């Protein structure tokens, strides 16, 4: 506990970096996965390749990806943007399937009703299809949020600051408390975000009896 009270500034800075890298990645993954997943739903012929491809993308180890990304993006190896891009890619890989499942779960009867009522294409997507796909997308988003927050720590071995810095620094300087603090805060942050998503889901989707 002593170490924690003496190093609050370091901890808060690591936490701040962690949030600053992972939140944009989660949001970007969601924004990219929705059109991709929708395409997989609309074009069943391509849904196999899209989903297999994203599965393969998720199998790529994070550290090598973080090392190779700068060659493509041109950013410095210690630039946080690499972490954001890598985490976004993993997030997309996980979410595309949930989004496609979400749109596929809408009953043909509901679609028929929406057409018969006179919804136009865009309005139907935004006010009928997207809300009805949302519960399954949210389940996927919770998985993505947890794994993104955990994966974000890996950048620390390349010198990109995050809660992972507490692991590398703690290991180099032989401070057990620092590593444990890092693990606890990573798990805590993931738990906090998960809770926020659950509450948000309940607020936005009151027709769901429970967002499991």
């Amino acid at each position, binding site marked *: 506990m002593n170490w924690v009270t003496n190093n609050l500034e370091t901890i808060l800075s690591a936490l701040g970096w962690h949030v600053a890298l992972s939140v944009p990645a989660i949001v970007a993954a969601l924004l990219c996965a929705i059109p991709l997943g929708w395409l997989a739903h609309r074009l069943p012929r391509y849904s196999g390749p899209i989903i297999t491809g994203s599965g393969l993308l998720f199998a790529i180890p994070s550290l090598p990806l973080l090392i190779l990304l700068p060659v493509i993006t041109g950013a410095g190896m210690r630039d946080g943007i690499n972490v954001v891009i890598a985490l976004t890619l993993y997030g997309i890989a996980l979410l595309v399937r949930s989004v496609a499942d979400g749109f596929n779960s809408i009953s043909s*009867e*509901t679609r*028929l*009703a*929406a*057409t*018969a*009522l*006179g*919804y*136009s294409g865009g*309005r139907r997507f935004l006010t*009928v299809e997207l*809300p*009805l796909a949302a519960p399954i997308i949210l389940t996927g988003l919770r998985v993505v949020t947890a794994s993104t927050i955990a994966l974000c720590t890996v950048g620390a071995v390349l010198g990109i600051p995050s809660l992972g810095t507490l692991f590398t620094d703690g290991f180099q300087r032989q401070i057990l408390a620092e590593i444990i603090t890092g693990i606890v805060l990573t798990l805590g942050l993931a738990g906090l975000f998960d809770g926020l998503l659950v509450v948000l889901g309940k607020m936005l*989707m*009151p*027709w769901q*009896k429970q967002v499991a």
Partner: protein
Amino acid sequence: MISFESVTKTYPGPRRSAADVVAVHDTSFNVDTGTITVLAGSSGCGKTTLLRMVNRMVAPTSGRVQINGDDIAHMNPVQLRRKIGYVMQHAGLLPHKTVAENIAVVPRLNGATRAEAKRSVDRMLEMVELSADMADRYPAELSGGQAQRVGVARALADEPRILLMDEPFGAVDPLVRTGLQQQLIDIQHELGTTMLFVTHDMSEALRLGHEIILLAKQGRIMQQDSPTRLVEQPANAFVENFLGLNAAEKALRTRTTADGRTMVVDAHGRPAGFLEQA
């Protein structure tokens, strides 16, 4: 008046080599304004296809549908659908919207303000005899009969001149169905809406229709008549058979049951009821 002029609908076969499937072939009839016209027939006779031609959910392969003399092929399908009510078998309520929001959909799509839509909702709930506290429920919290009432209320909320109904009461139990049918008759009487109603249940057709169109495969019209004339002067054996009026079923006998009551059975031995002693 809605008029169907030589409409045909073919769908591509299931495989590339397979022949086209003909759902409706060269069918013509008129639906008079302010009446209930029932399209009756067994499954696969093309009745739903014909119904969906009216709001352009199905486009005829050839022929045309006119509403009051205007060819609907020239109308914007989305705008057209907002002016025509549609009720489907399992109500088809939007699961993420409350009862009130479901009923308000079409008025809102047509540009009604929240307050105007709210007034429509209240009026409609009263018309289909649902209590006002149902307004905030979600479809998952309704019984089949309640959901169907909401379906009717939603279809009528923006006072369409035409209402299309596709076996709307097929999935509710018989007792509730009778209540819903009576309610529909009352509503039609009150509003004078032109209704096109699809069913495979002849007793429902006889009960609701001012005019009944009995269809065989591919939308072939076997008889178009009032219920009375249909029963009294069936045009052919198909009609008689569909009405259950053929000789075998008209020949009723009585039997005495174990508990001493008199049961009426048809020629196939199927019970038709008990004889009440007057």
